[in-house]
């Protein structure tokens, strides 16, 4: 039996058709509602992180002008901004949001296999967010240790929030990891066990491949963060010395002795680097689908794309110490990690070529999702290229902890995934809401965001090469920083505020869609994949009405020669109609 989806139809979980408002929208076990809950919460905290970045930029452009930003606050803003963006926004939105929405729909399942656990996952995530936010209101405020939370500074007085703040941060991370694990087990099991008839692994859309691989990475990598969080909590509260070396703090010798801050760095980055790909792989997968749909062409080199996703995922576990070149490790280590890091460039470059080749001679529809997807190719190539610089030990040493790094990672894991997220939201909004968004508003939003982020981050590379350090509240009297750097900082800040404010266009567009949007119909993009073939739009509880779909072909049958339409859906039983692709097809 192929479609024994919901926990093998166990009697206790048999049917959970929701009846009341509360069971439908609040304590919901429906993957689509949970996806929206996840997504909405993630966007809300994301806005907090955005406001924090605006305040940092204000301080950098107009030092000491704003009395509410003192050094302590600045460090707290940096830390909370970084952590929220990476974990509570991007990870939650891609996996909790899109993972939840897309997996059952694209695989042809009625729901996740464990709907109840799925619901718990969201509520635990919400609790983790509340714990994190509450740290703004405790004495001492949130931690200001930087999102990497390096000991010993993190838990020593002198770092803002080194009492309550850091404990709440660690607790919140632990709860998040539990939430993620409950969700992740669901995603993986659903993909493996609950696909509809005919949906072989190699017929799955790349979105699912990206989400699946990212989830596996998360399941294996988040424990490293949990281990370091638990050990740090012990060091802080019980006086153990896992990470804490002998320290003189404010003239007093502390009880700690002999601990190893480097051990923490290893654990943190054993999680931290895969985390980059937990965010990137779903973006890779989703953008592949958007490009293919809106270029009316099959994705170029499908099987290569799958292998690249899986290969990048596996490699991402053996590169972590490229974040630690300046930690004084053995040079042979540096050599090893530089090599593995550069090897990852190969599958990554393959993916970029394949995206570009998918566009080649496509029948491109330059609509909003497509614009964001093409924007992603630009930002990702830029971020990726600077990554090659930083991957080399000798180049990294002078650039480490400068604005070059800030520019690099914002391009590659800040802006690029955000481009895909916006593209994906615009792409699936007609399915989620049943209504079409405002195209013009969407295009304005795209150009403001795309050009604006370039105006923010390109100059940062230049500042970095000048040697402007990151995580500095003010630069003081540093001879090597020319006065012109300050004017550049003003420019960057203006661009940042502009980008920040222009995100209102997005929110306005969502509201516009919900109130004024025209009905979108069930398949407005003329796409092939299952989520567009539901009997109702938006899909009802159970997704498929009476009968589950049956899949006859892969997800990319666009512009098939001889076919009546320029797309053939996955459920269409007609014979023929798959493209023989130039690079592998037999002729």
């Amino acid at each position, binding site marked *: 039996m192929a479609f024994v989806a919901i926990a093998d139809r166990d009697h206790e979980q048999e049917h959970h058709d929701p009846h009341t408002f509360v069971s439908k929208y609040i304590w919901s076990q429906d993957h689509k509602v949970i996806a929206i809950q996840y997504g909405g919460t993630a966007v809300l905290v994301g806005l907090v992180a955005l406001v924090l970045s605006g305040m940092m930029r204000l301080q950098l452009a107009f030092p000491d002008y704003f009395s509410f930003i003192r050094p302590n606050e600045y460090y707290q803003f940096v830390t909370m901004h970084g952590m929220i963006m990476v974990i509570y926004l991007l990870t939650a939105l891609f996996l909790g949001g899109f993972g939840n929405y897309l997996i059952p729909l694209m695989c042809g399942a009625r729901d996740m296999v464990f709907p109840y656990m799925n619901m718990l996952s969201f509520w635990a995530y919400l609790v983790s967010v509340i714990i994190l936010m509450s740290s703004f209101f405790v004495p001492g405020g949130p931690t200001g240790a930087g999102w990497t939370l390096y000991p010993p500074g993190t838990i020593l007085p002198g770092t803002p929030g080194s009492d309550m703040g850091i404990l709440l941060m660690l607790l919140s991370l632990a709860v998040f990891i539990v939430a993620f694990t409950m969700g992740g087990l669901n995603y993986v099991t659903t993909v493996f066990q609950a696909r509809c008839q005919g949906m072989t*692994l*190699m017929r799955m859309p790349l979105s699912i491949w990206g989400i699946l691989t990212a989830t596996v990475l998360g399941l294996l990598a988040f424990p490293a963060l949990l281990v370091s969080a638990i050990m740090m909590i012990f060091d802080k509260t*019980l006086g153990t010395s896992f990470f804490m070396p002998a320290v003189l703090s404010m003239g007093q010798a502390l009880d700690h002795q002999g601990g190893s801050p480097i*051990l923490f760095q290893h654990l943190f980055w054993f999680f931290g680097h895969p985390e980059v790909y937990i965010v990137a792989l779903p973006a890779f997968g989703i953008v592949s689908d958007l490009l293919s749909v809106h270029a009316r062409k099959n994705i170029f080199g*499908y099987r290569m794309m799958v292998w690249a996703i899986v290969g990048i995922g596996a490699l991402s576990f053996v590169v972590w110490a490229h974040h630690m070149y300046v930690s004084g490790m053995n040079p042979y280590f540096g050599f090893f990690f530089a090599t593995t890091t550069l090897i990852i460039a190969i599958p990554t470059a393959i993916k970029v070529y394949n995206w570009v080749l998918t566009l080649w001679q496509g029948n491109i529809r330059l609509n909003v999702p497509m614009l964001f997807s093409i924007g992603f190719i630009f930002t990702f190539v830029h971020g990726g290229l600077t990554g090659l610089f930083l991957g080399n030990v000798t180049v990294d040493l002078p650039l480490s902890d400068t604005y070059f790094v800030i520019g690099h990672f914002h391009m590659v894991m800040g802006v690029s995934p955000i481009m895909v997220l916006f593209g994906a939201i615009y792409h699936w909004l007609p399915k989620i809401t049943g209504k079409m968004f405002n195209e013009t508003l969407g295009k304005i939003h795209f150009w403001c965001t795309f050009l604006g982020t370039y105006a923010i981050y390109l100059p940062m590379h230049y500042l970095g090469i000048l040697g402007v350090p990151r995580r500095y509240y003010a630069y003081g009297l540093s001879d090597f920083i020319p006065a012109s750097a300050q004017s550049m900082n003003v420019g960057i800040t203006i661009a940042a505020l502009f980008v920040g404010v222009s995100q209102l266009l997005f929110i306005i567009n969502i509201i516009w869609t919900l109130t004024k949007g025209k009905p979108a119909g069930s398949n407005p993009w003329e796409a092939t994949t299952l989520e567009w073939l539901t009997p109702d739009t938006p899909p009802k509880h159970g997704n498929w009405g009476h009968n589950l779909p049956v899949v006859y072909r892969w997800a990319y049958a666009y512009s098939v020669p001889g076919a009546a339409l320029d797309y053939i859906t996955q459920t269409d039983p007609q014979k023929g109609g*798959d493209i023989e692709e130039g690079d592998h097809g037999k002729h």
Partner: protein
Amino acid sequence: MSMWTLVVALVSALVVWYLLARQLMAQPWLADGEVGYTPDIEAFASPAKKVALFFLLAVISSLFALFFTAYMMRMNPAHGDDWLSIPKPDILWLNTVLLLASSMSMQWAKNLVNHQSGKSPLPALIIAGVFAISFLVGQLLAWQQLYNIGNLQISNPALGFFYLLTGVHGLHILGGLYVWARATIRVFMGITTPSINLSVELCTVYWHYLLVIWLVLFGLLLTT
């Protein structure tokens, strides 16, 4: 040090590889053969709950592998030269026997439901639970004994790790006991459905797994 993490990464890569290799040679874009072929799809021939349990065990393995790696790295003088081996309470040997007995009783319960002998698994389940609870009590006594020694410094990583690792392992046992309690109550109320059999089976897998983790952990503690 990084050997351990490398091994974990490699093993997980191999697992992924194995899972995929079965279907990854497909050429979905080809017209002949592929289109119209509608196989039943399940990557594994097990119920979803069992598949999920195995993924959960992978997560827990990652967790413990990382704890053990951290343990061994911290022992290395390069990461602090203050490791002082601590005495290991003898009661740990007794606890090991208790956990072994608990695991065996679980297996007994599983055999009963599997063979559909008509005999209730209830006694076996209860015995397994009692052994597991006594294991936990024994671990607490071990903590007590260490605490009573008195002159041990918590800043000594050997002691910190002792509490930490036994504690984390104990929490996993507690989690198992929660599932065990739910299954046992349902058996007690006379419910006999396939889902009970599955619960008993999954509990058994989990019990054996935690026994193995304990044996590795105990070995690590004894030898360091």
